[in-house]
């Protein structure tokens, strides 16, 4: 058996074989091994965070990651930036008939590895196989549950953001979007850029354990940094001033963006957290972030201001300023 057949999603013997040889074998944990229709989780006496995300990236393998790593890290990050400690994940696969089993295994191994790194368990899942052409190789949905300490419950809404607070990012912008773009066979474009795809929960929990004035966090995925900041200021009584000269962007990403006409501010990331924190704590936060390999290029990139409520304004490196708005459409197709 080297290719996925429709029968692998039928619920019959082929399905069982695939589940036990592949999913159970790699994801193996006590909750999953019960193999009930639902995973039974131990009771938690705290507020819960619950999130879901689907992954359809094309191509499924790209420099720095693959759809499996992305599916785990993406959901882990959604929990982590909400102030939660990620605990459990579900994983559902919609597979196109004909996918090499070795590709699926590579994806599952990658998910297992990322789950181990993030310290979470994949406790339930599902597999469906569709006719060739009805999906593109494999689509993965993951949902995640995490627990939130009472003192972090305000982060998800961004309570208590004040003018003077600093905007922080943990590294370079646009790596994921450009790595995926370059991985498309049809483009004949090569770059040294790797996707930044990574689980940020340990970086974030280190910060939440040490600092009390982190007001807000969000991962800057689709739509890039610009979109996150626009969403943050929208309908609010504060604005954000971004300093173009302070934005960390790799030279190779700048170059690729010039060629394709993209703005790194809008290019997707999969391992970047935007943090708004008090000016007093910001320098210490940066120092702490830089101790983590996922935060070596951390920087303060802007400030919360009262001047232009609801708007993000970029101070350009040549001394001008312009509004940063949400994009009308996508810059790049299917990057997550």
């Amino acid at each position, binding site marked *: 058996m080297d290719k996925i057949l429709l029968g692998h999603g039928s619920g019959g013997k082929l399905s069982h074989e695939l589940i036990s040889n592949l999913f159970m074998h790699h994801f193996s944990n006590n909750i999953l091994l019960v193999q009930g229709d639902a995973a039974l989780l131990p009771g938690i006496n705290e507020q819960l965070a619950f999130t879901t995300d689907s992954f359809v990236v094309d191509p499924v393998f790209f420099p720095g990651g693959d759809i499996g790593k992305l599916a785990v890290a993406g959901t882990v990050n959604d929990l982590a930036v909400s102030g939660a400690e990620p605990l459990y994940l579900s994983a559902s696969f919609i597979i196109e008939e004909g996918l090499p089993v070795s590709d699926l295994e590579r994806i599952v191994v990658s998910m297992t590895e990322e789950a181990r790194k993030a310290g979470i368990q994949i406790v339930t899942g599902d597999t469906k196989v569709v006719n060739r052409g009805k999906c593109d190789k494999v689509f993965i949905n993951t949902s995640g549950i995490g627990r939130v300490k009472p003192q972090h419950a305000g982060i998800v809404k961004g309570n208590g953001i004040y003018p003077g607070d600093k905007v922080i990012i943990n590294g370079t912008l646009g790596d994921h979007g450009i790595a995926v773009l370059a991985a498309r066979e*049809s*483009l*004949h474009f090569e770059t040294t850029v790797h996707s930044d795809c990574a689980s940020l929960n340990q970086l974030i929990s280190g910060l939440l354990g040490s600092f009390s004035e982190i007001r807000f966090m969000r991962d800057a995925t689709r739509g890039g940094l610009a979109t996150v900041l626009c969403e943050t200021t929208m309908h609010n009584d504060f604005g954000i001033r971004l300093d173009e000269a302070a934005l960390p962007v790799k*030279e*190779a990403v*700048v*170059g690729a963006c*010039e060629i394709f*006409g993209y703005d790194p501010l809008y290019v997707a990331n999969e391992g970047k957290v935007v943090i708004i924190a008090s000016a007093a704590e910001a320098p210490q936060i940066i120092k702490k972030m830089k101790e983590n390999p996922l935060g070596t290029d951390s920087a303060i990139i802007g400030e919360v201001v009262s001047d232009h409520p609801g708007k993000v*304004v970029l101070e*350009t*490196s*040549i*001394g*001008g*300023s*312009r*509004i940063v*708005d949400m*994009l*009308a*459409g996508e810059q790049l*197709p299917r990057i997550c």
Partner: protein
Amino acid sequence: MKYQSEYRKKEDIQQLAAQIRKISKKEIRLMEVCGGHTMAIQKFGIPSLLPPNIKLLSGPGCPVCVTSRKFIDQIMAYSRMKEAIITTFGDLIRVPGSSGTLDEEKAAGADIRMVYSILEAIDIAVQNPGKQVIFAGIGFETTAPGTAAGILQAAQKKIKNFTVLSSHKIMPPAMAALIDDGVPIDGYIAPGHVSTITGSHIYEPLATDYKKAVVVSGFEPLDLLQSVYMLVNQIESGKPAVEIQYKRVVTEAGNQKAQEIMNEVFTLRADWWRGLGVLEKSGLGINKKFSDFDTNFRFPMDIPETSDPKGCRCGEILRGTLTPTDCSLFAKACTPVNPVGSCMVSSEGACQAYYRYRNN
């Protein structure tokens, strides 16, 4: 790799801006005719660095903006043809025709694919021998050689199921037509990419016959400011000429090889431009020798004439007689999410540039 930051140094830019202020006395109007310049000028906030007597205008430099709605209607009609695959650059996907856009047509079931190069479209043709692959070719001298090279490759490989619907145009007739029409322009910021192919010599008549200042410019803030400086210098001294600021790329003669393949594959024809009407010898039709690769020849189709939507001022904006903010629809009924006119749809359009990089 430092190819960009040295062109964006704040101190150098401020210094150059000060020099422009020093030598500039007359009220002048400078027009760029390149979507890349439109974007760069707004993105870097160049107008705010210039004295009030220098006005920068955006001309007919965005291919999607000057192209008729009929072209979109035609692509849509072909997309409904049996076994057709339409391939096009992303720019065209959201441009409205008379009855909708290509992405709406795609959602309704048409096989319309976004490609980054004509070679990708040829690959699709090779992989789908039972289908007719049509490439919607759009752009000025910058993209036309690519289309020409694609047609030559398809001919060499004897590909039977690949054709090009050409809407390619060339720049000089439009630049002359604006002056003939009496649009007040003192000098042209000539397009950097177009000139890389054509060379700067194509603008000579503008300087000798029309007495207009012409400087071929690059796309970085220092490039643009230096070009403005050179233009002001020419105008103030009363000595119009064709000069190249973008010397690291552009020569007087241009890219001979690219010109040769364009001449081999295309033939000049009259073409319609939004804001300018029909201009003689301004469009690039496909030469008879390559008619097997000409969609119009292989699949003749009658498409009714179209008119632009009510209230849309794209025509006047493309002539430089209005700026986007003069249009009553701008940023109200017409935004990048719900564009009325083509200048708001294209990422190189003047209206989108003004909208995206507005500062209040």
